[in-house]
């Protein structure tokens, strides 16, 4: 009986495109790949959640080089996929070319702003989430020196770094060592170099290291765990990678951004415009689960919750690096 029902569900899902009002969502990942345990995986999780809840299938595409972007986007648009969600700032250029040609389709881009009537741009206030993990890092550090390792050197990643420095310094860190892995997209997938940078930072005295570097971060967290120090994950909840060795993760709700886009389109409520999601909107946060509960002491919890409340209330503003390309901390 269960099989029959499952079969029926599957069949319904497959016929779905036949109904005009049904959505045919599409999701495009960025370089780094679907299962990067980080940014793209969060997007995937959001889409999967939508699929299990509604039974509506979606199509997806992973780019392997930059020249595929516009082509992939156009192909989905030609197929009438709607909405088309793009995870990653690098899609902006292709999207601004394609969006005008398909005024009836709905697009969503995550991490970048593209101002078109049929595009919803979702950006996160990463500086706010990074500020919180910075507070935790400084509190957990015994040397009061903490590290930051970014992936490719771009303003977006500098924004993570800047918020982190702000939080760490506010909570008593004396020194924040900042490194970027490289200047090319290969910097998102170089765990060896990430691990090496982490070791260098630990040699310099850092004992908590925050990695905002996609796949490179895997190497950073590994090196920190090997040395008995703490790593901090990013985008997805990475606490489970090395239980007890990952202090926390700065989670960015890319999954909800994808889920909401699909859901809104399904309910006919999809609107264009800019969504800027910070702590207040629940767009970013720090992660606590069974893997790291023991690492966060009551004092740390109090401090970080206070910082969170202050930011939400507006008494503390975290500087946005991308507003003036400077970091005042």
């Amino acid at each position, binding site marked *: 009986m269960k099989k029959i029902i499952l079969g029926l569900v599957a069949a319904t899902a497959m016929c779905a495109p036949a109904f005009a009002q049904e959505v045919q969502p599409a999701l495009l990942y960025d370089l780094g790949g679907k299962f990067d345990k980080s940014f793209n995986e969060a997007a995937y999780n959001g889409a999967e959640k939508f699929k299990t809840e509604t039974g509506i299938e979606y199509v997806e595409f992973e780019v392997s080089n930059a020249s595929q972007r516009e082509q992939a986007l156009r192909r989905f648009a030609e197929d009438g996929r709607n909405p088309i969600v793009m995870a990653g700032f690098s899609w902006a250029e292709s999207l601004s070319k394609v969006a005008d040609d398909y005024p009836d389709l709905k697009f969503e881009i995550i991490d970048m702003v593209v101002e078109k009537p049929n595009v919803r741009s979702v950006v996160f206030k990463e500086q706010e989430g990074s500020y919180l993990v910075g507070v935790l890092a400084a509190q957990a550090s015994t040397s009061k020196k903490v590290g930051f390792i970014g992936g490719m050197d771009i303003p977006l990643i500098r924004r993570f770094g800047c918020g982190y420095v702000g939080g760490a310094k506010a909570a008593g860190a004396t020194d924040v060592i900042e*490194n*970027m892995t490289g200047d090319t997209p290969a910097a998102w997938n170089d765990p060896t*170099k990430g691990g090496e940078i982490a070791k260098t930072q630990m040699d310099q005295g850092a004992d908590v290291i925050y990695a905002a570097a996609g796949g490179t971060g895997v*190497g950073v967290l590994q090196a920190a765990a090997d040395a008995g120090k703490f790593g901090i994950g990013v985008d997805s909840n990475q606490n489970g990678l090395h239980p007890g060795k990952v202090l926390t993760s700065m989670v960015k709700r890319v999954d909800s951004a994808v889920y909401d886009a699909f859901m809104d389109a399904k309910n006919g409520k999809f609107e264009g415009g800019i969504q800027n999601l910070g702590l207040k909107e629940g767009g970013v946060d720090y992660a606590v689960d069974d893997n790291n509960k023991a690492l966060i002491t009551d004092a740390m919890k109090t401090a970080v919750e206070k910082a969170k409340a202050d930011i939400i209330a507006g008494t503390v503003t975290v500087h946005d690096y991308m507003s003036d390309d400077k970091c005042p901390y």
Partner: protein
Amino acid sequence: MDFLDVVVNVLNSTVRLSVPLLLACLAGLYSERAGIFDIGLEGKMLAGAFAGAAAASVFGSAWIGLLIAILVAVFLALVHGFASITHRGNQIVSGVAINFIAAGSTIILGQAWFNQGGRTPSLPSDARFNAIVLPGADAVRDVPILGEIYSGLLSGHSLLVYLAFLAVPFTWWVLFRTRFGLRLRAVGENPAAVDTAGISVAWLRYRAVICTGILTGMAGSYMALAQNAGFVKDMTAGRGYIALAALIFAKWKPVPAMFACLLFGFLDAMAIRLQGTPLPVIGRVPVQLMQALPYILTVILLAGFIGKAIPPRAGGVPYVKER
């Protein structure tokens, strides 16, 4: 932190960063000295890294991982050999093909076997090559300078690091002191002469690419089983190409190859260390410059400023017996 600590840390980092380059560079040396250009070092390292990590996670043993990594890399080297020795195909094309095969198949197989998006499960520490503490390292730690160098710099690396550096004199000995080495060099310079002497050119070249396979397998294992704890897609990140640059830089000689790799590793370590820190006198050095230096040096060398790099004369030319 005092100056010596900084020096030891940077040199430590240099050693770790140069080992994969060194192994790949020596691998290329065997093959290119025998007249087979090998642009597929990158692919063989990547495949070795994947195979090593996959085997180590399934069998829970770093040694089995190393063995499988070597087998897979040797297999790919033989594919390259089959195309370019037996079938006299274009060596560059076949090498590039191997890079593509490795980049694609590791992700597909990894996804099919482990369901982690081409990543292999994170390895526990007993399935990795861990740091070895040399005898007496802890005892002499407090001896000034020498103790620091012995315990901080020489001790505390994984087994593969020591093997890589031992491979340098070994390679020198094989190439310049054994009959096999003499023939190997001859086959890269003048295969017709070797053939006239009644020695099989094809078999010699096959043996050379097998050596290449073994060393690239070790390079891949080092990355996946010692530096990291598992495989991540594209984790070699172009090191196979830098190794080729080092090989040219070293003029196809084993000992200079070691220094070239150490130099490239050192530049990398300095780039990491100096990021964002201003230096006395010169001020802030752009990291991009440090990262580009290996390539700049190679180009300068190729342009003929630091002596002349002459590749083995029969390199890249398939041997055709006259009939």
